[in-house]
């Protein structure tokens, strides 16, 4: 109870749509404070501008004495984030964690990392190599990935498109939510269920 007091407080704070900070986190299932979905708006003036990046957040039992576990679920081209798995290399999420930090400050640190990559301490060697050797190519790849993978989904439009293929609204919405708004995966599931 007392330990989740802090989490409750934090979620009330970080759950609000905060246009100024551009970071947010909400519980995946209402009532479960340990599995969160974070979102970071791509910082202006970077290759990630205009993108919406989703982060899987798991709160360990020992929180805040252990850091929250964070991982990008949106594909991103960045030297400190794995282009394959979304794993993040950021010291405060590892040995530099402090219980004075919060979910919000951790997300803000990630946002800062998107602004200033640290190729000297890479998570993805291939991306870091490109960042150091061919900055132009890096920038255009990162932009391309933002445009391809990090576009905010208009949920209503997606539901309508799936409905047009002959499914009812409720099952279309459920299938889309289950598959992270991947329309073809949702349709496949709906077809399989016939």
């Amino acid at each position: 109870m007392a330990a989740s007091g802090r989490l409750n407080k934090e979620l009330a704070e970080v759950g609000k749509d905060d246009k100024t900070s551009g970071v947010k986190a909400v519980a995946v299932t209402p009532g479960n404070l340990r599995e969160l979905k974070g979102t970071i708006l791509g910082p202006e003036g970077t290759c990630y501008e205009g993108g919406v990046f989703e982060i899987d957040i798991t709160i360990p039992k020992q929180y805040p004495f252990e850091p929250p576990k964070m991982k990008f679920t949106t594909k991103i081209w960045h030297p400190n984030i794995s282009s394959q798995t979304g794993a993040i290399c950021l010291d405060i999420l590892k040995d530099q964690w402090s219980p004075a930090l919060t979910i919000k400050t951790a997300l803000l640190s990630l946002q800062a990392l998107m602004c200033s990559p640290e190729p000297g301490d890479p998570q993805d060697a291939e991306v870091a190599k490109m960042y150091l050797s061919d900055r132009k190519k890096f920038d255009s790849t990162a932009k391309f990935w933002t445009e391809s993978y990090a576009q905010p989904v208009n949920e209503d439009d997606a539901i309508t498109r799936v409905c047009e293929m002959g499914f009812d609204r409720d099952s279309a919405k459920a299938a889309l939510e289950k598959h992270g708004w991947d329309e073809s995966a949702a349709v496949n599931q709906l077809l399989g269920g016939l």
Partner: protein
Amino acid sequence: MESRKRQSDTAVIVPQQQRQQQQAMQFSNTTPSTRSRLRVRIKRFHGVAKWTWNAGSEDEVCGICQSPFEGVAPGAKYPGDECPVVFGKCGHAFHLQCVATWLNSQRTTCPYCRQEWEFGQSSDQRRVSEQNP
């Protein structure tokens, strides 16, 4: 930092003389004819006191559990002496239980400034040194 005394042991007692005067005023109206002064002997005294930890302002929270210093840290049942506030040599304050759990998890630094944590004065010692500089 605003200085704040822990006041649990300093309940206010009205001085003897003043108390008698107040009582005389109250009772002289009710018995104007007899002129005799009523005496009241106080047999019991119920003091009520408010206390705060001598650590920053009243609405300040512990940086670890984010509960107020006057509140209860996770794992402690009651606020107050059960749940003391401790200072590091760096000057940062936390609930004792909170910083102890942190130090038990193989960390050695202050959660705020990352200096090596060393226990400094407790709030009680601070109170004494502030009163008798």
